[in-house]
């Protein structure tokens, strides 16, 4: 019993809101709750009044009523209009959440039965933990090694499925420092409930201190460069001349003409596919079946490293996305465009 009381003492009824995304969603949530509450109360009150006022009495007969087209139209059109508001409001929030801002810091997440692996552009890694600075938009690029997972941070009101074979993205801006739950919300097998972790939102200064303590091994792009050498990619993908395979310098985010006449953009998804299944899309002017299939040879984390390397070969890519050697971009004020020099020079091992 005592335990129960203690349990009730820390009973929480509404989640903390710790991101820029949470505010608008909570507003819509409360709006929906208020409107639904009014509707429910109206119907309950009507039922109670009718049940009491028109309860069966001897000698009193029901008054037969056919119906009323006017009333029917009223209670069809009015809810419809209210729903249009819900629809419009919900869609606005959703659309605003689609495209991450340009200055978003990039983090890579790989879901795997049953853990979340996190990679930062500077090459450091974590499992079931994510550290983000407050006030800085963070874009997550997510992949799955096996089944469908879903990445969710309730305190930020963000969630996206992580479907194998795709890159899924998600972004948020934390507003309140603290420790928040990170859940997998798509059933993924036995230990689904243990595919959880913590998100640490830190004040920028603290975050910079934390980030400076990371491990060695070079940043993501240089890890990718190593893989590029080890797997023999560099023998065909020459960087200074045209080899048997396309030159990757300046490729990232550029249009590519394909052998079958289509044109695609060389984004993350395209590069991932070209590594794992090279013959799916053949660049015009090159032969199929030269590059081996790397599916099963490289993990999703390796692919992310390779993509970071290929990105770093494109000088026009914004610094924040290059995974450059410097650091994770740390911004003190959310509006600042450039990382302050102090943070930029945070020593890394």
């Amino acid at each position, binding site marked *: 019993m005592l335990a*129960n009381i203690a*349990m*009730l003492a*820390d009973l*929480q009824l*509404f*989640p903390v809101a710790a991101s820029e995304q949470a505010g608008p969603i909570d507003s*819509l*949530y409360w709006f*929906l709750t208020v409107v*639904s509450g009014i*509707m429910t109360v109206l*119907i309950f009150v009507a039922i109670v009044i*009718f*049940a009491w006022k028109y309860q*069966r*009495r001897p000698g*009193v*007969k*029901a*008054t*037969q*009523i056919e*119906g*009323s*087209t*006017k*009333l*029917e139209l009223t*209670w*069809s059109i009015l809810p*419809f209009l209210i729903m249009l508001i*819900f*629809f419009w*409001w*919900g*869609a606005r*929030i*959703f659309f605003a959440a*689609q495209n991450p801002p340009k200055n978003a810091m990039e983090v890579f997440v790989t879901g795997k039965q049953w853990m979340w692996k996190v990679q930062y552009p500077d090459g450091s890694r974590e499992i079931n933990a994510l550290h983000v600075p407050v006030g800085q938009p963070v874009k997550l690029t997510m992949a799955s090694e096996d*089944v*469908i997972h*879903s990445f969710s941070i*309730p305190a930020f*009101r963000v*969630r*996206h*499925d992580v*479907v*194998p074979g*795709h890159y899924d993205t998600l972004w948020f801006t934390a507003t309140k420092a603290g420790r928040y739950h990170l*859940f*997998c*919300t*798509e059933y993924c*097998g*036995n230990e*689904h*409930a243990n595919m959880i972790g913590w998100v640490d939102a830190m004040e920028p200064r603290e975050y910079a201190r934390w980030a400076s303590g990371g491990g060695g091994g070079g940043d993501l792009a240089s890890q990718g460069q190593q893989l590029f050498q080890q797997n023999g990619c560099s023998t065909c993908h020459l960087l200074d001349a045209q080899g048997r395979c396309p030159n990757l310098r300046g490729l990232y985010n550029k249009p590519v003409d394909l052998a079958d006449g289509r044109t695609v953009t060389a984004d993350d998804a395209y590069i991932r596919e070209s590594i794992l299944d090279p013959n799916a899309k053949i660049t015009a002017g090159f032969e199929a079946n030269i590059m081996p299939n790397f*599916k099963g040879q490289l993990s999703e984390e390796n692919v992310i490293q390779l993509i970071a390397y290929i990105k770093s070969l494109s000088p026009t890519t914004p610094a924040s996305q290059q995974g450059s050697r410097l650091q994770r971009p740390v911004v003190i004020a959310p509006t600042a465009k450039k990382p302050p020099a102090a943070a930029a020079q945070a020593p890394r091992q």
Partner: protein
Amino acid sequence: MATIAPTHGTPELAENRVNYLNVEHGWKSWLFTTDHKRIAVLYLISITLMFFVGGLMAVLFRINLLEPEGIFAPETYNRLFSAHGIIMVFFFLVPSIPATLANFLIPIMVGAKDLAFPRINLLSWYIYVIGAFLTLYAVIRGGVDTGWTFYAPYSSTYSNSYVLAAAFGVFTAGFSSILTGLNFIVTVHKMRAPGMTWSRLPLFVWSNYATGLIQVLGTPVLAITLLLLAFERIAHVGIFDPNIGGDPILFQHLFWFYSHPAVYIMILPGMGVISEIVSCFSQKRIFGYNFVAFSSMAIAVLSFVVWGHHMFVTGESMYTSLAFSFLSFMVAVPSAIKVFNWTATMYKGSISFDTPMLYAFGFIGLFTIGGLTGLYLAALGTDVATHGTYFIVAHFHYVMVGGMVMAFVGGLHFWWPKITGRMYPESWAKFAALIIFIGFNLTFFPQFILGYLGMPRRYHAYPPEFQALNVLSSAGASILGVGYVIPMVYLLWSLKYGKKAGPNPYNAKGLEWTIPSPPTTFNFDVTPVVTEEAYNYGELEEIVG
């Protein structure tokens, strides 16, 4: 149809009268019957068994959730919730009202001697039983752990459980559902008695007709989806597993193309039951008959174009999401129309509070909450925050359990005298209705709060701060469980000791109340000729507005 005075007393000679129950004896007369009423009883027994099996699973996993770390092994928990979902959805909710009450009542309500295809009707029961055995076999051999949604590639490649047996069980049961729907469609089109025009059909018939359309159009897609899944699991060819070239999103599209309409298979018949009950216990015409009938059809049509709202956070294009969000709001309008019309039907009625009416009150209240919380999930912004959490679990249990099960139990009480010739004990029944209502709300209301707090569904363990609400929910589940056992006991008791019922114990309208309780094998001695609209409880006196 002469008005039959309420005959609460014991009708004379009823004991000696031949009816569909005592016309033949022995198990063969049941297993080879083609009488829709006997098949309905066979179905009633089978789905009740499945309901209690599925319910037992629910009680067990609610016990597990008393402790944040869980009590059972995760394997056990996952198999329990999966079996609960599969059994409750495919072997209880989908056939619940159509295969039992509607099977019993539709031919009588339209003035026919039987459904259009009596042997197919029997066949559908056998198919159901085979499907049920396959699924129970999977559960007994060690269970299936994919959830009722069978999401690929988990189900096709990764799961180490009896996925094939369960999938074949569901696949098989699907055909029983198709055959039931087909029988209803043809019966309503072709078997109506003279004078029974479409605008005179009871609303229960309308809603089951709409259900039949969904069953016939949706279920085959589920069948082929499960078949492809099974083949992928056997042959390891990539249809849904992306590691071997497939597309897991295709599975979700195909699955929800059936399974969202299936949600309406599960609720439309319940809405039909409520229309009958509200009208009878208000002794009043249903308010806006045309709108209620039309809204059933609108729901059936719209139900086929909203499936994409299950994939708002799966990476479907945002314009696709936009369209599906809009259509999902649309389907809420006809549901709202029904609620308003039931409420308006009570206005200036002569309302009595018999047990079926209590269930109707419960249905309207809980379905309203279930429906309105659906709007949170149709709105793109809030769906992101609630998707895959207990909010969804609470939402669909308010619709499925608060709605459909309430309607099923209410309808079962309402027509119990017609089916068995005996009345249920009124005070016990009222008591049980109250217990079920309390237990239900205690179980599922905390889950809305848990959901928005972020507790994901299908977790065998959870962070300790969610414990209080989970304990509340589990406590409610035990009350709910008891609530369902009480009717089981007194309804069985009433078979022998219940008060004998006359043909029309509630002074209700409709062809089923013009014939004896229980009816004879061919329902009507003379084909009835219908000369008036449904729910003609008296002369029209007032037209509002």
